[in-house]
């Protein structure tokens, strides 16, 4: 049911070419923010317009698309973006990480390891890792040019001086191939290790801020830290209450007004496949019973 009034994947070919050039430049200079002429999309800025434009520029009719928000395929905005591409590109969609050729994500990297040939597209609100230390784009660009990242280290140091630890739990800055400091988008720092040496292509699109950047496969990515305060990926100290996974990132769900809560995988596909494989958590019900 492709809308005939619009080109394949909504954007016209000229625009896609412009975006592809930015992507290629980004891949050639890992971690560098490439300015691109972001278009108004039919969804608001802040809803993933950068990711949507990157996905639109990468999609071919043979692709299989997966869209997640907060790790889940069925959150409202993930549903909305997936529908958009079903409507404008008519591509196959999936919830299975392993089946997808392109995965658009907001705030998470899937738990299942990505493979060669897959593209992970991140939605990015503020692409500039130095933005909250220096609000001016003219200044931050200069800082990147001169590789002047002292301000960032001062900030991390001040965190340690004040809190005894680096008080950044998501959107945790990384250094790419020893050169550019990069904003990994607001993924929890739990996901940061997956950025490095990943066999998939990782593309980052910031629509409102008009920037694209990229990590080609197997790029070396290091989370910023100090020798005596090494980076640690953290998550809630629980197992998933549905699938008993010990190593997945968890959402905390308040289950009643007595303060009871449960912890469940934020990656819905990961959790479901584990339950299908017979894993059962503290509060889980075997899938066979749920279906009835």
């Amino acid at each position: 049911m492709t809308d005939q009034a619009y080109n394949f994947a909504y954007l016209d070919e000229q625009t896609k070419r412009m975006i592809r050039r930015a992507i290629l430049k980004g891949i050639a200079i890992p971690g560098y923010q490439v300015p691109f002429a972001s278009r108004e999309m039919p969804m608001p800025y802040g809803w993933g317009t950068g990711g949507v434009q990157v996905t639109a520029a990468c999609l071919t009719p043979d692709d299989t698309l997966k869209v997640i928000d907060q790790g889940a395929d069925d959150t409202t905005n993930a549903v909305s973006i997936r529908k958009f591409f079903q409507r404008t590109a008519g591509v196959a969609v999936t919830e299975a990480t392993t089946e997808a050729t392109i995965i658009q994500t907001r705030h998470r990297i899937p738990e299942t390891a990505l493979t060669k040939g897959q593209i992970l597209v991140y939605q990015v609100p503020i692409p500039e890792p130095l933005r909250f230390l220096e609000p001016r784009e003219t200044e931050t660009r200069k800082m990147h040019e001169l590789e002047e990242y002292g301000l960032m280290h001062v900030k991390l140091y001040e965190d340690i001086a004040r809190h005894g630890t680096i008080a950044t739990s998501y959107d945790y800055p990384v250094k790419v191939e020893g050169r550019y400091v990069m904003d990994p988008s607001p993924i929890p720092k739990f996901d940061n290790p997956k950025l490095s040496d990943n066999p998939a292509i990782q593309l980052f699109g910031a629509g409102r801020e008009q920037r694209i950047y990229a990590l080609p496969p197997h790029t070396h990515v290091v989370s910023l830290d100090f020798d005596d305060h090494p980076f640690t990926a953290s998550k809630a100290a629980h197992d998933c209450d549905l699938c008993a996974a010990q190593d997945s990132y968890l959402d905390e769900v308040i289950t009643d007004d007595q303060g009871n809560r449960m912890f469940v995988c934020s990656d819905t596909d990961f959790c479901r496949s584990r339950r299908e494989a017979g894993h059962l958590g503290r509060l889980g019900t075997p899938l066979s019973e749920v279906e009835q």
Partner: protein
Amino acid sequence: MYVAVKGGERAIDAAHAWLADERRGDTGIAVLSVAQIREQLALAVNRVMAEGSLYDPDLAALAIKQSRGDLIEAVFLIRAYRTTLPRIGASTPIDTGRMDLTRRISATFKDLPGGQILGPTFDYTHRLLDFALMAEGETPASVISAPVSSPTGETGVHLAAAVPHVTGFLNRDGLIQTETPGDSTPPDLTREPMELPATRPLRLQALTRGDEGFVLSLAYSTQRGYGRTHAFVGELRIGTVAVEMDIPELGFAVQIGEVEVTECETVNQFTGSKTEPPQFTRGYGLVFGQTERKAISMSLVDRALRWQELGEDFTGAPAQDEEFVLMHADNVQATGFLEHIKLPHYVDFQAELELIRRLRREAMAEREAAE
């Protein structure tokens, strides 16, 4: 038994249906036609065209109807449509000196060639609610007399003939800074990413499609001393201008339509700087439709942003700060980013929860140890 939150798709469909229902309102009330909006809410239509950067009164009226009167939402609808349109070419520059005027005033001269034309303005109305408008029946169509334009007695229903700009008179005496004409193609921020520092044409483009409220407040701040520019409205003119385009096959330009625009030129007192002699300086505003608040605001902000070019001091005023102004003037960008915090952020929030819990635990333990 807990079942993870499902049903995003059903919820979205239901929300859309409910929205459509709310948009229509009470079906006992006659439906509002797009033509009615275009004709009777023309100033809203103008604002949507100006900030949507698309001159099409019918589509702007449709957007207002579809957005339930939320003008920023309407601007967004127009922008999202506009971005899909192919570019067939560029018009030749419009000539506002040959504007078919409906309004033209100067605050700097009592009378001037071409005359003062008050036109359809709220300026001297008393802001008393007209309950007659509410009592269904419109007041009978008043007879619009041919406008008496100026004290010189010229009438001006059609002034399509050239009406010189006020700043031109000052220029003849060398009292106002001259704008150097240029033939270079101005940049287009809808096709190229914004690059800073920006050129004046790019600044003007950003301002003319910038949010009216934002540009107004910035202009107001300059009047109150944050980057004061001592502005006079040298001239404000509203009317239609011909849009012409060079047709390669013909070898000359033909008129392809006309647009209504509001143009404002401010004349600003200037006592000179290290680089420039004492002279009047200018600010410029040009906006689609009858949108004079916006055009005046734009010209004040334009003038404030020219501090560097004129050798003035940067006082740290927001209206002087190009990056601040240009990066925050667009209401479609602003509203998107502002409202996106409604989207789920529970992954990040969860990470914050863990962090705060840990920091608290450590702080409490320290406090206990100290006691």
